[in-house]
Protein backbone atom coordinates (compact mmCIF):
# COMPACT_ATOMS: atom_id res chain seq x y z
CA UNK A 1 0.00 0.00 0.00
CA UNK A 2 1.22 3.48 -0.86
CA UNK A 3 2.07 5.05 2.51
CA UNK A 4 1.03 8.49 1.23
CA UNK A 5 -2.54 7.25 0.87
CA UNK A 6 -2.67 6.14 4.51
CA UNK A 7 -4.37 9.31 5.92
CA UNK A 8 -7.11 9.12 3.27
CA UNK A 9 -7.57 5.36 3.78
CA UNK A 10 -7.86 5.95 7.56
CA UNK A 11 -10.57 8.55 6.98
CA UNK A 12 -12.54 6.40 4.50
CA UNK A 13 -12.35 3.16 6.47
CA UNK A 14 -13.22 4.67 9.89
CA UNK A 15 -16.68 5.78 8.75
CA UNK A 16 -18.28 6.43 12.15
CA UNK A 17 -15.29 8.39 13.47
CA UNK A 18 -15.10 10.44 10.27
CA UNK A 19 -18.86 11.12 10.29
CA UNK A 20 -18.75 12.34 13.92
CA UNK A 21 -15.86 14.71 13.30
CA UNK A 22 -17.36 15.99 10.03
CA UNK A 23 -20.68 16.77 11.78
CA UNK A 24 -18.85 18.90 14.39
CA UNK A 25 -16.98 20.70 11.60
CA UNK A 26 -20.23 21.30 9.66
CA UNK A 27 -21.82 22.89 12.77
CA UNK A 28 -18.75 25.11 13.14
CA UNK A 29 -18.85 26.13 9.48
CA UNK A 30 -22.60 26.71 9.46
CA UNK A 31 -22.43 28.97 12.52
CA UNK A 32 -19.55 31.02 11.15
CA UNK A 33 -20.56 31.24 7.48
CA UNK A 34 -24.32 31.45 8.07
CA UNK A 35 -23.96 33.97 10.91
CA UNK A 36 -21.58 36.20 8.95
CA UNK A 37 -23.77 36.20 5.84
CA UNK A 38 -26.84 36.94 7.97
CA UNK A 39 -25.24 39.92 9.77
CA UNK A 40 -23.82 41.25 6.48
CA UNK A 41 -27.24 40.94 4.81
CA UNK A 42 -28.91 42.94 7.59
CA UNK A 43 -26.26 45.68 7.37
CA UNK A 44 -26.52 45.71 3.55
CA UNK A 45 -30.29 46.05 3.88
CA UNK A 46 -30.07 49.04 6.22
CA UNK A 47 -27.40 50.77 4.11
CA UNK A 48 -29.51 50.17 1.02
CA UNK A 49 -32.63 51.54 2.70
CA UNK A 50 -30.82 54.68 3.88
CA UNK A 51 -29.51 55.28 0.36
CA UNK A 52 -32.82 54.37 -1.24
CA UNK A 53 -34.79 56.89 0.77
CA UNK A 54 -32.53 59.29 -1.03
CA UNK A 55 -33.68 62.49 0.66
CA UNK A 56 -32.83 64.51 3.77
CA UNK A 57 -36.43 64.94 4.94
CA UNK A 58 -39.66 63.04 4.42
CA UNK A 59 -42.95 64.87 4.82
CA UNK A 60 -46.04 62.89 5.85
CA UNK A 61 -49.58 63.67 7.05
CA UNK A 62 -49.56 64.55 10.75
CA UNK A 63 -51.61 61.56 12.00
CA UNK A 64 -49.62 58.99 13.93
CA UNK A 65 -50.51 56.14 11.58
CA UNK A 66 -48.86 57.54 8.47
CA UNK A 67 -45.30 57.17 9.81
CA UNK A 68 -46.09 53.63 10.99
CA UNK A 69 -47.60 52.85 7.57
CA UNK A 70 -44.53 54.16 5.78
CA UNK A 71 -42.23 52.11 8.03
CA UNK A 72 -44.36 49.02 7.43
CA UNK A 73 -44.15 49.61 3.71
CA UNK A 74 -40.37 50.03 3.84
CA UNK A 75 -39.58 47.20 6.25
CA UNK A 76 -42.30 44.62 5.67
CA UNK A 77 -43.60 45.55 2.23
CA UNK A 78 -47.09 45.97 3.71
CA UNK A 79 -48.94 48.25 1.31
CA UNK A 80 -50.33 51.42 2.86
CA UNK A 81 -51.95 54.69 1.90
CA UNK A 82 -52.44 58.09 3.56
CA UNK A 83 -53.10 61.49 2.11
CA UNK A 84 -52.64 65.21 2.64
CA UNK A 85 -53.67 68.20 0.58
CA UNK A 86 -51.53 68.94 -2.47
CA UNK A 87 -51.46 72.68 -1.69
CA UNK A 88 -48.78 71.89 0.87
CA UNK A 89 -46.29 71.90 -2.00
CA UNK A 90 -46.85 75.65 -2.49
CA UNK A 91 -46.25 76.29 1.20
CA UNK A 92 -43.02 74.28 1.09
CA UNK A 93 -41.66 76.50 -1.67
CA UNK A 94 -41.79 79.46 0.73
CA UNK A 95 -39.48 77.79 3.25
CA UNK A 96 -35.88 78.89 2.89
CA UNK A 97 -33.16 76.29 2.48
CA UNK A 98 -35.16 73.70 0.55
CA UNK A 99 -33.40 72.53 -2.59
CA UNK A 100 -35.55 69.78 -4.10
CA UNK A 101 -39.15 68.72 -3.50
CA UNK A 102 -40.74 65.59 -4.95
CA UNK A 103 -44.24 64.40 -4.03
CA UNK A 104 -45.51 60.82 -4.18
CA UNK A 105 -49.00 59.34 -4.19
CA UNK A 106 -49.65 55.93 -2.60
CA UNK A 107 -52.32 53.60 -3.85
CA UNK A 108 -53.03 50.03 -2.78
CA UNK A 109 -54.50 47.68 -5.34
CA UNK A 110 -56.88 44.99 -4.15
CA UNK A 111 -56.05 41.51 -5.44
CA UNK A 112 -54.62 42.22 -8.86
CA UNK A 113 -54.55 39.78 -11.77
CA UNK A 114 -50.87 39.17 -11.22
CA UNK A 115 -50.85 38.42 -7.54
CA UNK A 116 -53.11 37.10 -4.83
CA UNK A 117 -51.82 39.83 -2.52
CA UNK A 118 -52.23 43.59 -2.47
CA UNK A 119 -49.78 45.59 -4.57
CA UNK A 120 -48.38 48.97 -3.53
CA UNK A 121 -48.63 51.45 -6.37
CA UNK A 122 -46.61 54.63 -6.03
CA UNK A 123 -47.41 57.58 -8.25
CA UNK A 124 -44.53 60.01 -8.60
CA UNK A 125 -43.87 63.30 -10.32
CA UNK A 126 -41.27 62.63 -13.01
CA UNK A 127 -40.25 66.27 -13.38
CA UNK A 128 -39.20 66.62 -9.75
CA UNK A 129 -38.27 62.98 -8.94
CA UNK A 130 -34.84 62.36 -7.45
CA UNK A 131 -35.56 59.21 -5.41
CA UNK A 132 -36.89 56.63 -7.89
CA UNK A 133 -35.32 57.02 -11.33
CA UNK A 134 -31.70 57.08 -10.02
CA UNK A 135 -32.36 53.50 -8.87
CA UNK A 136 -33.33 52.20 -12.28
CA UNK A 137 -31.39 49.06 -13.16
CA UNK A 138 -30.97 50.27 -16.73
CA UNK A 139 -31.19 53.95 -17.51
CA UNK A 140 -34.45 55.13 -19.04
CA UNK A 141 -34.02 58.55 -20.60
CA UNK A 142 -37.47 59.54 -21.80
CA UNK A 143 -40.51 60.35 -19.71
CA UNK A 144 -43.14 57.74 -18.83
CA UNK A 145 -46.11 57.74 -21.18
CA UNK A 146 -49.64 56.69 -20.28
CA UNK A 147 -49.91 53.12 -18.96
CA UNK A 148 -46.14 52.76 -18.64
CA UNK A 149 -44.75 51.61 -15.31
CA UNK A 150 -41.50 51.00 -13.47
CA UNK A 151 -41.42 47.97 -11.16
CA UNK A 152 -39.46 47.00 -8.07
CA UNK A 153 -36.89 44.21 -8.39
CA UNK A 154 -39.08 41.62 -6.66
CA UNK A 155 -41.74 41.69 -9.33
CA UNK A 156 -40.80 38.87 -11.67
CA UNK A 157 -41.44 40.68 -14.90
CA UNK A 158 -38.99 42.10 -17.41
CA UNK A 159 -38.58 45.43 -19.15
CA UNK A 160 -40.67 45.31 -22.32
CA UNK A 161 -43.17 42.88 -20.84
CA UNK A 162 -46.71 43.84 -19.88
CA UNK A 163 -48.28 43.65 -16.45
CA UNK A 164 -52.04 43.29 -16.27
CA UNK A 165 -53.79 45.17 -13.49
CA UNK A 166 -57.61 45.25 -13.43
CA UNK A 167 -57.80 44.00 -17.01
CA UNK A 168 -55.60 46.81 -18.34
CA UNK A 169 -52.14 46.04 -19.64
CA UNK A 170 -49.31 48.25 -18.40
CA UNK A 171 -45.96 48.26 -20.20
CA UNK A 172 -42.93 47.74 -17.95
CA UNK A 173 -40.30 50.27 -19.07
CA UNK A 174 -37.91 50.01 -16.14
CA UNK A 175 -36.92 47.85 -13.22
CA UNK A 176 -35.34 49.20 -10.05
CA UNK A 177 -32.29 47.73 -8.33
CA UNK A 178 -32.79 45.39 -5.41
CA UNK A 179 -32.92 47.10 -2.01
CA UNK A 180 -33.98 44.26 0.27
CA UNK A 181 -36.90 46.39 1.47
CA UNK A 182 -40.64 46.58 0.86
CA UNK A 183 -39.98 49.02 -1.97
CA UNK A 184 -38.90 46.04 -4.09
CA UNK A 185 -42.49 44.86 -4.46
CA UNK A 186 -43.99 48.22 -5.44
CA UNK A 187 -45.11 49.49 -8.86
CA UNK A 188 -44.10 53.05 -9.76
CA UNK A 189 -45.88 55.23 -12.29
CA UNK A 190 -47.11 58.74 -13.06
CA UNK A 191 -50.22 60.41 -11.64
CA UNK A 192 -52.07 60.03 -14.96
CA UNK A 193 -51.52 56.28 -15.04
CA UNK A 194 -52.64 56.07 -11.41
CA UNK A 195 -55.89 57.73 -12.49
CA UNK A 196 -56.23 55.16 -15.31
CA UNK A 197 -55.71 52.40 -12.75
CA UNK A 198 -58.40 53.73 -10.43
CA UNK A 199 -60.79 53.99 -13.39
CA UNK A 200 -59.97 50.46 -14.60
CA UNK A 201 -60.64 49.09 -11.11
CA UNK A 202 -63.95 50.93 -10.91
CA UNK A 203 -64.97 49.69 -14.38
CA UNK A 204 -64.34 46.11 -13.27
CA UNK A 205 -66.22 46.67 -10.04
CA UNK A 206 -63.15 45.94 -7.94
CA UNK A 207 -62.78 47.80 -4.67
CA UNK A 208 -59.64 49.88 -4.59
CA UNK A 209 -58.37 51.11 -1.27
CA UNK A 210 -58.53 54.76 -2.20
CA UNK A 211 -60.60 56.86 -4.53
CA UNK A 212 -58.88 60.18 -3.87
CA UNK A 213 -57.73 61.95 -6.98
CA UNK A 214 -53.94 62.29 -7.39
CA UNK A 215 -54.62 65.81 -8.74
CA UNK A 216 -55.88 66.89 -5.31
CA UNK A 217 -53.89 64.91 -2.76
CA UNK A 218 -50.41 63.49 -2.18
CA UNK A 219 -49.09 60.92 0.29
CA UNK A 220 -45.53 62.02 1.00
CA UNK A 221 -42.99 64.58 -0.06
CA UNK A 222 -39.27 63.89 -0.33
CA UNK A 223 -37.17 66.95 0.40
CA UNK A 224 -33.47 67.70 -0.09
CA UNK A 225 -31.92 70.62 1.75
CA UNK A 226 -29.56 73.14 0.15
CA UNK A 227 -25.90 72.92 1.12
CA UNK A 228 -25.02 75.04 4.14
CA UNK A 229 -28.47 74.76 5.73
CA UNK A 230 -29.09 72.74 8.88
CA UNK A 231 -31.52 69.87 8.20
CA UNK A 232 -32.91 69.91 11.76
CA UNK A 233 -33.72 73.62 11.47
CA UNK A 234 -35.58 73.03 8.21
CA UNK A 235 -37.52 70.16 9.84
CA UNK A 236 -38.51 72.53 12.68
CA UNK A 237 -39.47 75.29 10.23
CA UNK A 238 -41.76 72.88 8.33
CA UNK A 239 -43.37 71.44 11.45
CA UNK A 240 -43.99 74.91 12.92
CA UNK A 241 -44.96 76.62 9.66
CA UNK A 242 -47.27 74.12 7.94
CA UNK A 243 -50.38 72.68 9.56
CA UNK A 244 -51.40 69.02 9.24
CA UNK A 245 -48.00 67.66 8.25
CA UNK A 246 -45.10 66.04 10.00
CA UNK A 247 -41.54 66.38 8.71
CA UNK A 248 -39.02 63.75 9.79
CA UNK A 249 -35.34 63.35 9.04
CA UNK A 250 -34.88 60.20 6.94
CA UNK A 251 -32.05 59.05 9.19
CA UNK A 252 -34.09 59.58 12.39
CA UNK A 253 -36.96 57.53 11.01
CA UNK A 254 -34.68 54.53 10.64
CA UNK A 255 -32.96 54.93 14.04
CA UNK A 256 -35.14 52.34 15.80
CA UNK A 257 -34.56 49.88 12.93
CA UNK A 258 -30.80 50.47 13.13
CA UNK A 259 -30.92 49.90 16.91
CA UNK A 260 -32.85 46.64 16.48
CA UNK A 261 -30.39 45.57 13.85
CA UNK A 262 -27.42 46.33 16.12
CA UNK A 263 -28.95 44.23 18.91
CA UNK A 264 -29.64 41.30 16.56
CA UNK A 265 -26.14 41.48 15.09
CA UNK A 266 -24.62 41.59 18.59
CA UNK A 267 -26.62 38.55 19.76
CA UNK A 268 -25.73 36.57 16.65
CA UNK A 269 -22.04 37.46 17.08
CA UNK A 270 -22.16 36.17 20.68
CA UNK A 271 -23.89 33.01 19.46
CA UNK A 272 -21.22 32.46 16.78
CA UNK A 273 -18.38 32.92 19.30
CA UNK A 274 -20.08 30.59 21.82
CA UNK A 275 -20.67 27.87 19.20
CA UNK A 276 -17.10 28.29 18.00
CA UNK A 277 -15.58 27.98 21.49
CA UNK A 278 -17.67 24.91 22.36
CA UNK A 279 -17.24 23.23 18.98
CA UNK A 280 -13.48 23.92 19.01
CA UNK A 281 -13.17 22.38 22.50
CA UNK A 282 -15.25 19.36 21.42
CA UNK A 283 -13.15 18.99 18.27
CA UNK A 284 -9.85 19.17 20.16
CA UNK A 285 -11.16 16.72 22.79
CA UNK A 286 -12.43 14.36 20.08
CA UNK A 287 -9.09 14.33 18.24
CA UNK A 288 -7.26 13.90 21.55
CA UNK A 289 -9.43 10.93 22.61
CA UNK A 290 -9.18 9.31 19.18
CA UNK A 291 -5.38 9.60 19.37
CA UNK A 292 -5.56 7.82 22.75
CA UNK A 293 -7.61 5.01 21.23
CA UNK A 294 -5.19 4.70 18.31
CA UNK A 295 -2.08 4.31 20.49
CA UNK A 296 -1.52 0.70 19.38
CA UNK A 297 -1.94 1.65 15.71
CA UNK A 298 0.69 4.37 16.09
CA UNK A 299 3.01 2.03 17.98
CA UNK A 300 2.78 -0.52 15.13
CA UNK A 301 3.54 2.22 12.60
CA UNK A 302 6.58 3.22 14.65
CA UNK A 303 7.75 -0.42 14.72
CA UNK A 304 7.51 -0.77 10.92
CA UNK A 305 9.73 2.25 10.50
CA UNK A 306 7.58 5.34 10.78
CA UNK A 307 9.58 8.22 12.27
CA UNK A 308 7.99 10.51 14.89
CA UNK A 309 7.91 13.28 12.28
CA UNK A 310 6.11 11.03 9.75
CA UNK A 311 3.60 9.98 12.42
CA UNK A 312 2.90 13.61 13.31
CA UNK A 313 2.49 14.42 9.61
CA UNK A 314 0.01 11.53 9.21
CA UNK A 315 -2.26 12.83 11.99
CA UNK A 316 -1.94 16.41 10.79
CA UNK A 317 -2.82 15.40 7.20
CA UNK A 318 -5.88 13.50 8.44
CA UNK A 319 -7.11 16.48 10.44
CA UNK A 320 -6.52 18.93 7.56
CA UNK A 321 -8.44 16.66 5.13
CA UNK A 322 -11.30 16.37 7.63
CA UNK A 323 -11.28 20.14 8.29
CA UNK A 324 -11.36 20.93 4.57
CA UNK A 325 -14.11 18.37 3.85
CA UNK A 326 -16.24 19.53 6.80
CA UNK A 327 -15.91 23.20 5.86
CA UNK A 328 -16.74 22.56 2.17
CA UNK A 329 -19.85 20.50 3.06
CA UNK A 330 -20.88 23.08 5.67
CA UNK A 331 -20.43 26.00 3.24
CA UNK A 332 -22.42 24.22 0.50
CA UNK A 333 -25.32 23.33 2.84
CA UNK A 334 -25.44 26.73 4.57
CA UNK A 335 -24.94 28.70 1.37
CA UNK A 336 -27.66 26.78 -0.47
CA UNK A 337 -30.14 27.26 2.36
CA UNK A 338 -29.36 30.96 2.92
CA UNK A 339 -29.31 32.02 -0.72
CA UNK A 340 -32.22 29.86 -1.90
CA UNK A 341 -34.50 30.95 0.91
CA UNK A 342 -33.30 34.56 1.22
CA UNK A 343 -36.71 35.91 0.14
CA UNK A 344 -38.41 33.85 2.85
CA UNK A 345 -35.88 35.01 5.48
CA UNK A 346 -36.44 38.62 4.34
CA UNK A 347 -40.22 38.36 4.63
CA UNK A 348 -40.09 36.72 8.08
CA UNK A 349 -37.59 39.23 9.50
CA UNK A 350 -39.48 42.49 8.99
CA UNK A 351 -36.08 44.10 8.55
CA UNK A 352 -34.26 45.18 5.39
CA UNK A 353 -32.24 42.15 4.25
CA UNK A 354 -29.95 42.15 1.23
CA UNK A 355 -27.63 39.19 0.69
CA UNK A 356 -24.00 40.06 -0.18
CA UNK A 357 -22.87 40.04 -3.80
CA UNK A 358 -20.73 37.28 -5.35
CA UNK A 359 -17.37 38.90 -4.47
CA UNK A 360 -18.28 39.47 -0.79
CA UNK A 361 -19.69 35.92 -0.60
CA UNK A 362 -16.46 34.52 -2.07
CA UNK A 363 -14.49 36.39 0.63
CA UNK A 364 -16.71 34.90 3.37
CA UNK A 365 -16.35 31.43 1.82
CA UNK A 366 -12.57 31.77 1.80
CA UNK A 367 -12.35 33.10 5.37
CA UNK A 368 -14.64 30.32 6.67
CA UNK A 369 -12.75 27.61 4.77
CA UNK A 370 -9.36 28.80 6.04
CA UNK A 371 -10.59 29.24 9.66
CA UNK A 372 -12.27 25.81 9.92
CA UNK A 373 -9.40 24.00 8.18
CA UNK A 374 -6.94 25.83 10.45
CA UNK A 375 -8.92 24.79 13.54
CA UNK A 376 -8.90 21.20 12.29
CA UNK A 377 -5.13 21.44 11.79
CA UNK A 378 -4.59 22.88 15.31
CA UNK A 379 -6.69 20.07 16.83
CA UNK A 380 -4.69 17.55 14.82
CA UNK A 381 -1.40 19.14 15.91
CA UNK A 382 -2.31 18.82 19.60
CA UNK A 383 -3.16 15.14 19.01
CA UNK A 384 0.03 14.64 17.00
CA UNK A 385 2.10 15.91 19.94
CA UNK A 386 0.42 13.30 22.15
CA UNK A 387 0.94 10.54 19.58
CA UNK A 388 4.69 11.16 19.12
CA UNK A 389 5.29 11.30 22.88
CA UNK A 390 3.96 7.74 23.34
CA UNK A 391 6.46 5.09 24.46
CA UNK A 392 6.14 2.48 21.68
CA UNK A 393 7.60 -0.41 23.65
CA UNK A 394 5.32 0.21 26.65
CA UNK A 395 2.21 0.34 24.49
CA UNK A 396 3.03 -2.91 22.67
CA UNK A 397 3.77 -4.65 25.99
CA UNK A 398 0.34 -3.64 27.43
Amino acid at each position, binding site marked *: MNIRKLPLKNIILQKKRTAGLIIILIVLTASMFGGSIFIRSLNNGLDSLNQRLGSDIILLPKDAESEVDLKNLLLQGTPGYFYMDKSILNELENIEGIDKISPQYFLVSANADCCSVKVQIIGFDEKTDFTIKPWLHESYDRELSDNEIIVGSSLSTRVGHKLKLYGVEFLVVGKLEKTGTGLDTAVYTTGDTVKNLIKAAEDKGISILSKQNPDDVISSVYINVKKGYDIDNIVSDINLGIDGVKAVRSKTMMTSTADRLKTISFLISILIVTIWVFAALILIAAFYMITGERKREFAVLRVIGYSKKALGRLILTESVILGAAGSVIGIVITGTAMYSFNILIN*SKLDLPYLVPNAISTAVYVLITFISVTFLGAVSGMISALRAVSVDTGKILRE
Partner: protein
Amino acid sequence: MKYLRSNVFKIAELVLALVLTIGSFTVFAACPVGEEHVMACHYAQLAVTTLGLILTIQALAALLIGNKKVRLGITISQVPALVAVFFVPGTIFSLCMMSSMRCISIFKPAVRIVDAVFFVAVVADIVVNVVKNGEVKADEHKEAAA
Protein backbone atom coordinates in the same frame (compact mmCIF):
# COMPACT_ATOMS: atom_id res chain seq x y z
CA MET B 1 -28.40 -4.72 7.34
CA LYS B 2 -26.74 -6.14 4.23
CA TYR B 3 -29.91 -5.37 2.23
CA LEU B 4 -29.90 -1.78 3.48
CA ARG B 5 -26.21 -1.36 2.68
CA SER B 6 -26.52 -2.73 -0.85
CA ASN B 7 -29.65 -0.64 -1.55
CA VAL B 8 -28.64 2.59 0.18
CA PHE B 9 -28.94 4.69 -3.01
CA LYS B 10 -32.27 3.14 -4.01
CA ILE B 11 -33.73 3.78 -0.53
CA ALA B 12 -32.44 7.37 -0.59
CA GLU B 13 -34.01 7.86 -4.03
CA LEU B 14 -37.36 6.52 -2.83
CA VAL B 15 -37.31 8.80 0.23
CA LEU B 16 -36.40 11.85 -1.88
CA ALA B 17 -39.12 11.02 -4.42
CA LEU B 18 -41.67 10.82 -1.59
CA VAL B 19 -40.42 14.12 -0.11
CA LEU B 20 -40.79 15.78 -3.53
CA THR B 21 -44.27 14.35 -4.15
CA ILE B 22 -45.81 14.87 -0.70
CA GLY B 23 -43.90 18.10 0.02
CA SER B 24 -45.09 19.68 -3.24
CA PHE B 25 -48.66 19.89 -1.99
CA THR B 26 -48.02 20.15 1.77
CA VAL B 27 -44.87 21.59 3.39
CA PHE B 28 -43.59 23.55 0.40
CA ALA B 29 -46.80 23.86 -1.63
CA ALA B 30 -47.20 26.80 -4.02
CA CYS B 31 -49.68 29.67 -3.43
CA PRO B 32 -53.12 28.64 -2.15
CA VAL B 33 -55.96 28.45 -4.68
CA GLY B 34 -58.43 31.29 -4.17
CA GLU B 35 -62.19 31.00 -4.61
CA GLU B 36 -62.20 33.32 -7.62
CA HIS B 37 -58.69 33.05 -8.93
CA VAL B 38 -56.36 30.13 -9.72
CA MET B 39 -52.78 31.37 -9.75
CA ALA B 40 -50.35 30.35 -12.51
CA CYS B 41 -48.13 28.62 -9.96
CA HIS B 42 -50.87 26.10 -9.16
CA TYR B 43 -50.20 24.31 -12.46
CA ALA B 44 -46.46 24.21 -11.67
CA GLN B 45 -47.35 22.53 -8.38
CA LEU B 46 -49.54 19.96 -10.17
CA ALA B 47 -46.73 19.21 -12.63
CA VAL B 48 -44.18 18.72 -9.82
CA THR B 49 -46.57 16.42 -7.92
CA THR B 50 -47.21 14.35 -11.07
CA LEU B 51 -43.51 14.05 -11.92
CA GLY B 52 -42.80 13.27 -8.25
CA LEU B 53 -45.33 10.47 -8.37
CA ILE B 54 -43.70 9.02 -11.49
CA LEU B 55 -40.27 9.23 -9.81
CA THR B 56 -41.68 7.50 -6.70
CA ILE B 57 -43.05 4.60 -8.78
CA GLN B 58 -39.73 4.34 -10.62
CA ALA B 59 -37.73 4.38 -7.35
CA LEU B 60 -40.02 1.73 -5.84
CA ALA B 61 -39.71 -0.47 -8.94
CA ALA B 62 -35.91 -0.11 -8.93
CA LEU B 63 -35.88 -1.17 -5.26
CA LEU B 64 -38.12 -4.21 -5.72
CA ILE B 65 -36.87 -5.60 -9.05
CA GLY B 66 -33.94 -8.00 -8.74
CA ASN B 67 -32.43 -7.79 -12.23
CA LYS B 68 -29.42 -5.44 -12.04
CA LYS B 69 -29.62 -4.24 -15.65
CA VAL B 70 -33.32 -3.41 -15.34
CA ARG B 71 -32.63 -1.58 -12.05
CA LEU B 72 -29.88 0.44 -13.74
CA GLY B 73 -32.18 1.19 -16.68
CA ILE B 74 -34.92 2.48 -14.38
CA THR B 75 -32.42 4.67 -12.50
CA ILE B 76 -31.10 6.13 -15.77
CA SER B 77 -34.67 6.86 -16.89
CA GLN B 78 -35.14 9.03 -13.79
CA VAL B 79 -32.58 11.57 -15.05
CA PRO B 80 -34.81 13.30 -17.68
CA ALA B 81 -37.69 13.50 -15.20
CA LEU B 82 -35.39 15.09 -12.62
CA VAL B 83 -34.13 17.63 -15.16
CA ALA B 84 -37.76 18.44 -16.02
CA VAL B 85 -38.70 18.89 -12.33
CA PHE B 86 -35.87 21.40 -11.89
CA PHE B 87 -37.19 23.59 -14.69
CA VAL B 88 -40.91 23.26 -13.92
CA PRO B 89 -41.13 26.10 -11.34
CA GLY B 90 -40.38 29.38 -13.07
CA THR B 91 -39.12 28.15 -16.45
CA ILE B 92 -41.58 25.64 -17.96
CA PHE B 93 -44.47 26.98 -15.87
CA SER B 94 -44.53 30.63 -14.89
CA LEU B 95 -44.96 31.50 -11.23
CA CYS B 96 -46.62 34.50 -9.60
CA MET B 97 -45.35 38.02 -10.23
CA MET B 98 -44.23 38.96 -6.75
CA SER B 99 -41.17 37.24 -5.32
CA SER B 100 -42.46 37.56 -1.76
CA MET B 101 -45.24 35.13 -2.63
CA ARG B 102 -45.11 31.54 -1.44
CA CYS B 103 -44.50 29.97 -4.86
CA ILE B 104 -41.27 31.94 -5.38
CA SER B 105 -40.04 32.19 -1.80
CA ILE B 106 -40.72 28.58 -0.70
CA PHE B 107 -42.02 26.28 -3.48
CA LYS B 108 -39.37 27.01 -6.12
CA PRO B 109 -36.22 26.82 -3.90
CA ALA B 110 -37.47 23.79 -1.98
CA VAL B 111 -38.34 21.85 -5.15
CA ARG B 112 -35.00 22.74 -6.73
CA ILE B 113 -32.96 21.77 -3.63
CA VAL B 114 -34.73 18.40 -3.18
CA ASP B 115 -34.43 17.80 -6.93
CA ALA B 116 -30.70 18.66 -6.96
CA VAL B 117 -29.99 16.28 -4.05
CA PHE B 118 -32.09 13.59 -5.81
CA PHE B 119 -30.14 14.17 -9.05
CA VAL B 120 -26.79 13.80 -7.24
CA ALA B 121 -28.02 10.55 -5.61
CA VAL B 122 -29.18 9.15 -8.97
CA VAL B 123 -25.92 10.08 -10.75
CA ALA B 124 -23.87 8.57 -7.89
CA ASP B 125 -26.03 5.42 -8.07
CA ILE B 126 -25.48 5.14 -11.84
CA VAL B 127 -21.70 5.69 -11.52
CA VAL B 128 -21.35 3.14 -8.70
CA ASN B 129 -23.42 0.60 -10.64
CA VAL B 130 -21.48 1.09 -13.87
CA VAL B 131 -18.12 0.80 -12.02
CA LYS B 132 -19.30 -2.36 -10.19
CA ASN B 133 -20.61 -3.93 -13.40
CA GLY B 134 -17.28 -3.11 -15.08
CA GLU B 135 -15.37 -4.81 -12.26
CA VAL B 136 -17.61 -7.91 -12.45
CA LYS B 137 -17.14 -8.12 -16.23
CA ALA B 138 -13.35 -7.76 -15.88
CA ASP B 139 -13.31 -10.61 -13.32
CA GLU B 140 -15.41 -12.77 -15.65
CA HIS B 141 -13.00 -12.07 -18.54
CA LYS B 142 -10.04 -13.00 -16.32
CA GLU B 143 -11.75 -16.22 -15.25
CA ALA B 144 -12.62 -17.07 -18.87
CA ALA B 145 -9.04 -16.38 -19.97
CA ALA B 146 -7.67 -18.59 -17.17
